[in-house]
């Protein structure tokens, strides 16, 4: 029996499912042997094998379908993957940065930058990989177990996005919506438990919060207000996805949501946010007077207020110049 035939058959069957390896192998061997007159004539065997084609190609023909995800689902798969990776990338960068900043081991500035950069990068890559794996597994499951016939209704057909200067990318809007919801809920959570996460820390074996920065009652009150703001933003995103282009209704909603969220942030930052105990604590720890610390914090908060207002004004102006003046 020729070794070449064995090797060829092995190369084909190793690509097949366990239960069909033996049978396909036997049949292939029988067919190859029919094709040659003399089993010991290597030239003849080589010709027979070449006429069959490459083992990969043959194995592919034996398998009923060619990829993990059939063409029917490929488009949806790639689209979902794109959105999920954008969101996970953003989350990975933010959380990787926060996490690595909290646990800096290096003592020189260059080492710190190096460390933060690579830890953030590593964190982002690992979250992208797990996102890729999860989306792929879900689509393989849909592909294997879903309806083979693609049932659909006319009503399911999406609107054709008009390619004008007014168009809004649906992918961007979906990513924005999901990111807003995720970060929004994290923010609400942090606000609600602001006594646990934001404060003057005493390091004694574990991080123990000693003096919270914020007045807990105040931040808990604002959970509701920020919640409403978040809801409005989510609604605006939903309409962006629906229309996929700017129109007057969307513009009005967008401006209202912007103004509302700016007002909320400004009120939040200029109110009774910082706890008296925290200011007292900082002034004693850092040997400043109470009013010096209070002044410094006020300047800091007002700067943030200024930045928020300016950024949003710029956003609205650029929206006007890029999009709105094309509205007829």
């Amino acid at each position, binding site marked *: 029996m020729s070794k070449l035939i064995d090797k060829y058959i092995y190369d084909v069957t190793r690509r097949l499912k366990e239960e069909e390896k033996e049978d*396909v192998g*036997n*049949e*292939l061997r*029988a*067919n190859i*042997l*029919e*094709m040659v007159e003399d089993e010991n004539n290597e030239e003849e065997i080589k010709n027979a094998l070449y*006429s*069959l*084609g490459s083992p990969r*190609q*043959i194995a592919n*023909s*034996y398998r*009923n379908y060619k990829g993990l995800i059939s063409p029917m689902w490929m488009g949806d798969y790639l689209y979902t993957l794109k959105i999920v990776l954008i969101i996970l990338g953003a989350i990975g960068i933010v959380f990787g940065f926060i996490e690595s900043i909290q646990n800096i081991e290096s003592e020189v500035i260059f080492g710190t930058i190096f460390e933060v950069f690579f830890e953030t990068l590593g964190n982002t890559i690992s979250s992208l990989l797990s996102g890729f794996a999860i989306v792929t597994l879900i689509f393989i499951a849909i592909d294997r177990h879903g309806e083979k016939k693609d049932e659909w209704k006319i009503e399911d057909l999406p609107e054709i996005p008009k390619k004008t200067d007014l168009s809004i990318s649906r992918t961007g809007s979906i990513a924005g919506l999901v990111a807003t919801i995720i970060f929004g809920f994290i923010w609400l959570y942090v606000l609600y438990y602001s006594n646990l996460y934001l404060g003057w820390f005493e390091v004694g074996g574990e991080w123990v919060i000693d003096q919270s920065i914020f007045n807990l009652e105040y931040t808990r009150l604002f959970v509701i207000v920020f919640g409403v703001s978040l809801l409005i933003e989510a609604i605006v995103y939903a309409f962006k996805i629906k229309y996929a282009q700017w129109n007057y209704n969307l513009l009005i909603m967008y401006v209202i949501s912007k103004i509302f969220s700016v007002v909320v942030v400004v009120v939040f930052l200029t109110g009774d946010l910082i706890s008296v105990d925290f200011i007292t604590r900082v002034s004693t720890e850092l040997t400043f007077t109470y009013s010096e610390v209070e002044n410094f914090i006020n300047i800091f908060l007002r700067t943030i207020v200024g930045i928020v207002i300016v950024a949003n004004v710029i956003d609205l102006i650029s929206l006007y110049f890029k999009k709105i003046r094309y509205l007829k």
Partner: protein
Amino acid sequence: MSKVDIESLKVELRRGTQIMMVLSQLNNKEYGYSLLEKLIDKDLSIEAGTLYPLMRRLESQGLLESEWDTTSTRPRKYYEISDFGKEVLDELLKEWEKINEEIMKIVGETNE
């Protein structure tokens, strides 16, 4: 259009018709190589690397039935068309005639 494109279009066009060729030749038991020779004798172009996997697939779809014959010196896997396969072949042939008529009609109109 380049030559490669024409070839791949031809392969694509042939792929669907090969099922009819194979089913129509399996009223009597044949094994892979004997069917290949039979088709080649009738000047039908199909490659061994296409034919063998195709036979197996048609079997898994219930259009062919198979059995191993180990009594002779060389073991052979024989295939034969199933009753369901005969029904399917009839349907496919009807469809083929319909497509043929449609193409001829539409091409004829354009060429007038």
